[in-house]
């Protein structure tokens, strides 16, 4: 099977790229002061006595009553463990090893993350723990927006090519331009304001929902596409949690809020379905709709013109003329003959723009207050910077991009035999 060989070869290239990214990150960390470096790189557990990043901390010397400074064993342990006294190449090797083995440091004590009530529970925990809890939310959002992107960009691009320079084409051109030119935070905020205004129109302050019979006041903040905070009424009573994913804490076993009984996968919608709470599943999907639409609007802009142009090129090829001459209906020509071949370009461009696409998540998740990786990053970059989380998130996103590129290449090879056989 040539296909399997192709896939294996493609996967074997991935570590090279990852090592490259880790080298860049390592180069950047070497500019940091030592204390930041330790908090960034070390994977230490919670240290009750004094923060691991301080080389010296208060302790009692000379008996019980006289406080002084002693060497902090945790600091020097990390210092040694990280090999900070070794030559640079050895440090680099250590770093690459740790990055590959998911030792991405700890969430900093000083980070704005830990002043947040939800995220505060990740204080002093490994960055990977936090990312593991948050990633499913981001992935769900990415899935929904990818679905929207594909469902809009491909048909619209094809239509624009078929009805070239007609109103459909012009509309797609306008959409594409505005997707480039409108910032996502602006579009998102406008939507949030619109929904909020629609909801508070007439100043009726109480709303009932099927899963929460008591009326609730509306707060002018959306979490996802849904008014947040005091709407957190999932199980018949208002939860003390103000945040959307009530079971984020449940599944991270950090809080004891009544959410779902079990969280086998970590994906909120999937877990809700597994638990038989269908309203909850519907609700968590509904929350993703508006953020996904905003993400999709930007991504469609990039994709639409490529789909249209590739479709135009394909429609001029000889085999399309042959198909038409044979009397194949135009619908079938467009859908089967041209559509499938123009998919190649669509998928390639999707792969190329994936990094850009996923880079938009911090902003979107902040606009819609979705507790995903991006929102965590948004909290951690507020000064004082939480370097551990920032670098960890960067590496995680790189993993996602590399994985997406592998999938894209494999799909491309599947769609176009010339690639895998050539």
């Amino acid at each position, binding site marked *: 099977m040539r296909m399997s060989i192709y896939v294996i070869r493609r996967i074997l290239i991935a570590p090279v790229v990852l090592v*490259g990214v880790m080298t860049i990150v390592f180069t950047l960390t070497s500019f940091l002061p030592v204390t930041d470096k330790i908090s960034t790189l070390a994977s230490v557990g919670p240290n009750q006595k004094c923060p691991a990043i301080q080389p010296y901390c208060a302790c009692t010397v000379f008996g019980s009553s006289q406080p002084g400074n002693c060497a902090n064993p945790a600091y020097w342990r990390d210092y040694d463990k990280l090999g900070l006294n070794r030559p640079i190449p050895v440090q680099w090797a250590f770093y690459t090893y740790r990055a590959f083995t998911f030792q991405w440091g700890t969430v900093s004590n000083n980070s704005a993350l830990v*002043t947040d009530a939800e995220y505060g529970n990740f204080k002093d925990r490994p960055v990977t723990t936090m990312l593991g809890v948050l990633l499913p939310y981001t992935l769900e959002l990415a899935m929904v927006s990818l679905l929207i992107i594909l469902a809009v960009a491909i048909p619209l691009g094809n239509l624009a090519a078929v009805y070239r320079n007609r109103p459909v084409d012009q509309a797609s051109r306008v959409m594409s331009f505005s997707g480039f030119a409108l910032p996502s935070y602006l579009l998102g905020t406008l939507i949030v304001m619109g929904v909020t205004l629609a909801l508070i129109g007439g*100043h009726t302050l109480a709303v009932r929902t099927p899963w929460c019979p008591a009326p609730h006041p509306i707060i002018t*903040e959306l979490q996802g596409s849904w008014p947040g905070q005091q709407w957190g009424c999932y199980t018949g009573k208002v939860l003390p949690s103000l945040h959307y994913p009530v079971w984020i804490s449940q599944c991270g076993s950090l809080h004891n809020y009544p959410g779902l009984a079990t969280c086998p996968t970590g994906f909120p919608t999937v877990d809700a379905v597994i638990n038989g709470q269908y309203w909850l599943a519907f609700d968590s999907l509904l929350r993703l709709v508006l953020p996904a639409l905003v993400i999709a609007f930007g991504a469609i802009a990039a994709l639409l013109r490529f789909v249209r142009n590739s479709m135009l090129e394909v429609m001029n090829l000889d085999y399309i003329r042959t198909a038409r001459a044979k009397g194949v209906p135009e619908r079938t020509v467009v859908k089967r003959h041209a559509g499938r071949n123009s998919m190649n370009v669509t998928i390639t461009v999707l792969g190329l723009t994936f990094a850009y696409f996923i880079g938009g998540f*911090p902003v979107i998740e902040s606009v819609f*207050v979705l507790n995903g990786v991006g929102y965590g990053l948004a909290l951690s970059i507020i000064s004082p910077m939480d370097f551990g989380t920032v670098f960890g998130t960067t590496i995680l996103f790189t993993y996602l*991009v590399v994985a997406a590129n592998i999938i894209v290449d494999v799909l491309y090879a599947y769609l176009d035999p010339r690639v895998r056989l050539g």
Partner: protein
Amino acid sequence: MSATEPLGGAATKSRWRPSPRLAQFKRTWYFFRRNSLAMVGLGIILVIVAGAAYAAAQPYNWTAMTPYCATNFGPKSTMTSSGGYNVSTVSCSPYVCNYQTTLPTNYADFCGGHWYKEPYSGSLSKTYYSGAVPPTISFSTFQSGTMPFGSISASDTSLNDIYNLYTELLRGSDWSLIFSVSIVGSGALIGLLLGAVAGFWGGAIDEALMRIVDVFLSIPQILFIIVMVSVLLALAKTSQALEGPTTELSFLVLGFVLIWWPFYARLVRGQVLVVREQKYVEAARASGAGKGRILLKHIIPNSLYPVFIQFSLDVGTIPIIIGGLVYLHFPIFPNESPYFPEWGALSSLGVTGVGDYLRGCQLGSGCFIPWWQIIIPGVALFLYAISVNLLADGLRDALDPRLRR
């Protein structure tokens, strides 16, 4: 052939002939002029450039930059026992705006400029955080009366001296232009040279360069910029010599450029691979042209078109990305100045400020949403991006003989 056609027989009959370059330019301009959309784009760009030139001519005083949240217009809410909100206007100093990080247990202060969680019942209080550096727009409780768009308050005209949207947009136009053109320009230049070399020579150079490009392209742009700039800013704080707005802004530009060139390198390499197989390159080689000459005279000029298009797309993207960073409260503003009026930053600050205002505004208390703080910078950004796009589209159509109609 119409009378306005510069390629007419008239030119051949008369003695005087324009130089080939001038004739080429005239021809291009003729085709460009007929594209009305491109002319609109050119017009908008000229207006923006004129504004930027005016703004650049003004003396720039770093310390005179005022954070928005200056005097008495931060609405503050207190939570009543029944769960409602009282909103009153309180004084809040810039210092409080920028540096207050914790919150009294039972009320939320809206001067922080960051979104935050309000205390739910008084028992479960949440601390909130505000970015140390970015300023905030705080709004007074607006009356829905006559409203001079762009100003911050209708009733108190002294506040309009502190923050007027139009003035800020004008002052910021040179920032936006300088940032976007310098970033994308240097990125494109580096990418162009490296990509052309990689595509032309091939072999080990090509492989090595393209692997490096792969590595850079698999890091999301905004994340790379965040990582890069945060490290550089941390570096800047360690040394006296590196302090100052100029260094910090150069670091910002550097962070952008470092992630911007790889895409161009790949783009150009792909184009060069096509161009170097063309007949005219072969002809040049046959007539004894050196490698450098072929690269500079034949290959690079003919692989410029995609760079051109990408350049026009990216120029409009830069302010948007900067706006995104400001929205995330990423400290890109130089320490000496809490703020510089870049357009993306303006739109993002408007968005944050209006969001804060909405949250602080008691429902039904007749508060008016200052929508222009969102719309006007948004329109400016939109026009900028669109006009560069239209201009580039028109130029491509005019320059490429195959696309002329």
